């Protein structure tokens, strides 16, 4: 019988699956944001969403509370999440600098105007 895989989320106690679901939703939102926004800052925000969606997964999989079996990532998950945060910060700094430069050159931050990379 056809069974919606997420159907019983609501009935179960909060576990990894919920975190992962939220992470997935954040990830999809971030992707959609990146794909649809013409504003460079919007895109940056989408990226943050994607990254944080991923972070949520790491944390979920790394938490011994959420996953009581021996398969959890342990501290590794938290550590990677920290790395991602640092990287996101750096990326945001660089991306903002690019955006600023772009704005200086074109007077806009519409990424559709930035098609020099066209082959």
């Amino acid at each position: 019988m056809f069974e919606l895989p997420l159907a019983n989320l609501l009935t179960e106690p909060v576990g990894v699956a919920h975190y992962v679901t939220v992470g997935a939703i954040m990830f999809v939102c971030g992707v959609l944001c990146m794909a649809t926004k013409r504003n460079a800052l919007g895109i940056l925000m989408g990226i943050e969403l994607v990254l944080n969606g991923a972070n949520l997964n790491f944390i979920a999989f790394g938490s011994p509370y959420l996953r009581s079996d021996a398969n959890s990532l342990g501290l590794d998950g938290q550590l990677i999440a920290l790395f991602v945060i640092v990287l996101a910060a750096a990326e945001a700094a660089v991306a903002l600098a690019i955006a600023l430069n772009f704005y200086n050159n074109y007077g806009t931050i519409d990424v559709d105007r930035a098609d020099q990379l066209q082959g």
Partner: protein
Amino acid sequence: MDPAHYLPLLLGAAWLVPLVSFVIIWVGYSLPQMAGKRASYRTSKLGAYVATGSIVLSVVLSFFAMFGVWLPSNPLVDATHHGEVLEEQHAEDGHAAAQASSPFKMVAAESESHAAGEHANNPPPKYYSGEWYNLCTFGKLKLSIGYYIDALTVGMFCMVSLIASCVHFYAMGYMHDELHDFTDPEVTLSNGEQLKRPGRYHRFFQYLSLFSFSMLGVVIAGNMAMVFVFWELVGICSYFLIGFYIERHSASTAANKAFIVNRVGDFGMLIGMMALWSSLGTFTFGDATDEHGNEVKGVFSQLRTEQNDYQLAPADSMVEEQTRIAPHSVGESASADGPAEYNTAGQWLLLIAGVGIFCGCVGKSAQFPLHVWLPDAMEGPTPVSALVHSATMVAAGVYLVGRFYPVFSPEVLLVIAYIGCITLFIAATIAITAVDIKRVLAYSTVSQLGYMMLALGLGGWVAGMFHLITHAFFKSLLFLCSGSVIHAVHSNDMTDMGGLRKKMPITAYTMLAGCLAIIGAGIPLSTIGFSGYYSKDAIIEQAFSFGSANPKHIILQWAPVVGAAITAFYMFRLWYMTFAGKPRDQHRYDHAHESPRVMTGPLVLLAVFAIGVGWTLPGTNLNVTNLLEQARPVGTLETTHGTLLPDLVVPNEHESHLDKFRVPAGIAAFGTAASGLLLATIIYLWNLLNPDELKQSFRPLHNWLWNKWWFDELYDYVFVKPTLVLSGWMAKCDLKFIDSILHGAAALCRGGSQVVDKLFDQTMVDGTVNTFARGTWDFGLWLRKIQTGRLRQYVLFIVVGTVLLFVAITFVQGYLTAS
């Protein structure tokens, strides 16, 4: 004195002295010229003195060899008492020779004495032969410089050196124009002036010396190779002397003609030599001993062996050689086992050898059909004509026939006789109409050489050689006289002369003596006459003797008789036109004068010889005939029969002196000569018949003779032009044919490689590579379309890609786990 020792020494010295003179003049004159000194020595007569001195030395040596060595050791025997006397004398010679020894490894080959009557044929004459210098040796084959000295050699040495020295003296006067700058009247330059050039006095004498050396070399030669060497050398001297006036085109052309026509003869001679060389393996005339003391047989004794009674028979090696070349030519005779005279084994080879050698003589002695060069050779200075082209070099052919006589089979002799007969007639007829005084004499020379050849061919060896000697004297005299005349009137043309007798008596009367000698003037049936009387009568006697033995060849009997009439006619025509009557060109006549003593001296001396060379020295039996009889070639004193032509008979020469031949021959000779003389006198002295009218009435005949039977034109059309055309074709063939093939091949290669280039390289190899490149390029172009540069799109791609990847992995994993 030991002749075996002294004769080679004396004659060798006489032979080499002119060479020394040649070298001295060459060094003395050419080296300063090389060093850049050009004018100082031209006026010097020193060269002439050296050359003349050397040839006089040769005369002295030759005459000493003759009278001091040869005659004392080989006393003469009267030719009329042949028979037993001869046999005995030869027997004595044999003993004398057997004791002879020499540092030159000399061999005086002589048969053992034979009992008289056992052999009818005569043994080899007394001779001394040996070798001086070896050119090269290949196993048993040997080419060397040697000597063969018999009475004929000594006699020829005396004759050649004597005439040569007369000519040298004469030339010292004749060529004096060459002492200073010389203006050549016959050469006009393109700017209309006459050519003026430095004189070449010394060069003339240099050539004369070289010629004397070469000519004496031919005479002394001990083998055929040496004959050939000096044969060519006299040829080249003749070339230089004919072309002495190198600026005249006619002279250089005549020189070329002479040399090339002679080469045609030499071509035949080479063939004859090859035939002999390949079959006998030697060129040496006389026998010799090699270093091991073995006897090496010469050509003569191989062909006329003692066992065979000195009759001519091909040596075994010759038969072998002919069998090798043409196996069928001896097939039937070998099996037939017939009598010896019908055995043709080796005879054809002998014929080739004989005719081949004779070809060389035909060229050198200007016999028909190679006689055309001699008249043109008159372009040379007159002393040259006298020495080279009448007395010595052209007689070398006759001499060689005489020397090679033992090798000639009766068939070859017949060829020689016919060639001589044709020559004497043709040349004599042409001489009738010629007006150039030297050309008349040239044709007369050709005609007289024909007489000699005829005599030799008929078996009259002594007659022929005797005529050679007498002719040398009177013909050189005639030429020198004509030179004296030309010197005086500066023209060769007899129509410019006339009446010169009063102006130049010495020349006129010496020339008269020469004319009488050549027509053979003498009291018939007696022994008193000019030199030509003896020799020419001997020839005609032999002709009668031959004619009676060979009725088929009766023409050979009458041709010399008719020739005698023509000779008398044209000679006296010449003399009358030149010396008698009234001057035709008064201007030339006024300037004419007798020549200086240095020129008339030799004339007088030669005239004496021309009159008396046939006489017997009073109180002795010394005469030319007896001397020649000593040199009679081995085995020629018997009537011989042909092998290939069995009915051919060559009669014994001594039979011709029998009265049955002597009387009719003497009368016929006298009668014809007298009639010719009479006719000339009627026309040209008494003017009873006008020559111009005669010319008109016999116009076609006159034209025919005036154009020399059209020989030059004929040869031009038949030989010269086709040769040039052929050579042109061959040269064109190179350019047009062979090179075309090459160029065609090259073009083909280039074309082929272009095709290969197009088809294979450009289409296939390059095509494949280019297709790949283009495909990659096009693919890249296509890919480029998705490189929009839009970030949002890229993100979409990433997402889509990721999803697709996911799906794919999921499916693949599912597939894998399922399987």
